């Protein structure tokens, strides 16, 4: 199994499909070295209240837990990156702190490649 990198490009706040994508790849491809999330820059501008009230907030919390579990299960943890191509660094940082809190707190995620 050679798969080394998985790139996911959420274009909306709804990301249940990302969990499905991980179900396809993570169990059988233990050699994954890098997981990249490229978010549409406009999404990083949505305010906190709107985000937390949205149905998708729970999906992001699930993703946060899933990535932490995967990261911890590996002897050589993968590099996890998060970017908003063309977006502002400050907005991106704020979005990740809000939506992927555990990954951020434990410094498991790089905001820029």
């Amino acid at each position, binding site marked *: 199994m050679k798969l080394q990198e*998985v790139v996911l490009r959420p274009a909306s706040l709804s990301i249940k*499909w990302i969990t499905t994508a991980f179900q396809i790849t993570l169990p059988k491809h233990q050699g994954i070295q890098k997981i990249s999330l490229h978010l549409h820059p406009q999404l990083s501008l949505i305010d906190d209240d709107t985000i937390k009230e949205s149905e998708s907030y729970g999906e992001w919390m699930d993703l946060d837990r899933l990535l932490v579990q995967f990261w911890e299960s590996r002897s050589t943890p993968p590099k996890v990156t998060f970017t908003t191509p063309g977006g502002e660094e400050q907005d991106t940082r704020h979005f990740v702190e809000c939506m992927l809190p555990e990954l951020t707190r434990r410094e498991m995620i790089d905001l820029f490649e």
Partner: protein
Amino acid sequence: MSSPHIPADLLDKVTDHLHNTEDALRDCCLVSKSWIPRTRKHLFAEVRFMTGADLESWKEIFPDPSASPGHYAKSLVVRCLRAVAAADAEAGGWIRGFSRVERFKLGCYDGLRLRIPLTPFHGLSPVVKSLHVEFVALPSLQVFDLILSLPHLENLTVINSFDVPTDDDDDGDGGLPPITQHNNPTKFTGSLDLLMMDGMGPIARRLLPVPGGMHFRALTVMWVHEEDISLTRALVERCSHTLESLDITCDPNGTFI
């Protein structure tokens, strides 16, 4: 005074150095007949037929297809399918003049059901490594036959706005019609990009059972239907020994998950 002799390898170095300066290369063409092939190698490395007018200009300047600089082209872009297909029929294989094309880009944006056969492009060049197909309405069976006619194909990109089945796309019982078999299975060793607004099924379902298998190293897909998930899983498994990178985008309006 006799004309000075410049060694061939030095001439090659001069023209290679000027490869991306079109005006200088045109000037080089005027120096001597012996400079023409060397400069044409760069001047015609990429040929684009975006409109019928482009094609008419080409035919006017190079009326004899066998003597045209088409064989210098490494990259060919065709957007005016109808005009090129007509030229090919008229000159009995006009497109074969582009016999060294490695990167072939084919597109049609008129949104109408395509009635132009893609057969003139079959086996376009024995060295095509990259095929990029972009249609508003994808004639998926025709495109798939084109894909299989290129035995050294490594990289494949298919982009479309919506799939319009051709009359022979469905054999009536929900299965896929038989594809044209070719002697040498296509290689498929590079990248596969399927960015299809109506789902990747029309191409992916046909790719999965191809003889010789698939050995893609990079896969880029867009999910718009539930079927796209299972097709992605199947593609990843089919290429599991070679696949290094998987890139997924999901339709932002998709409510299928």
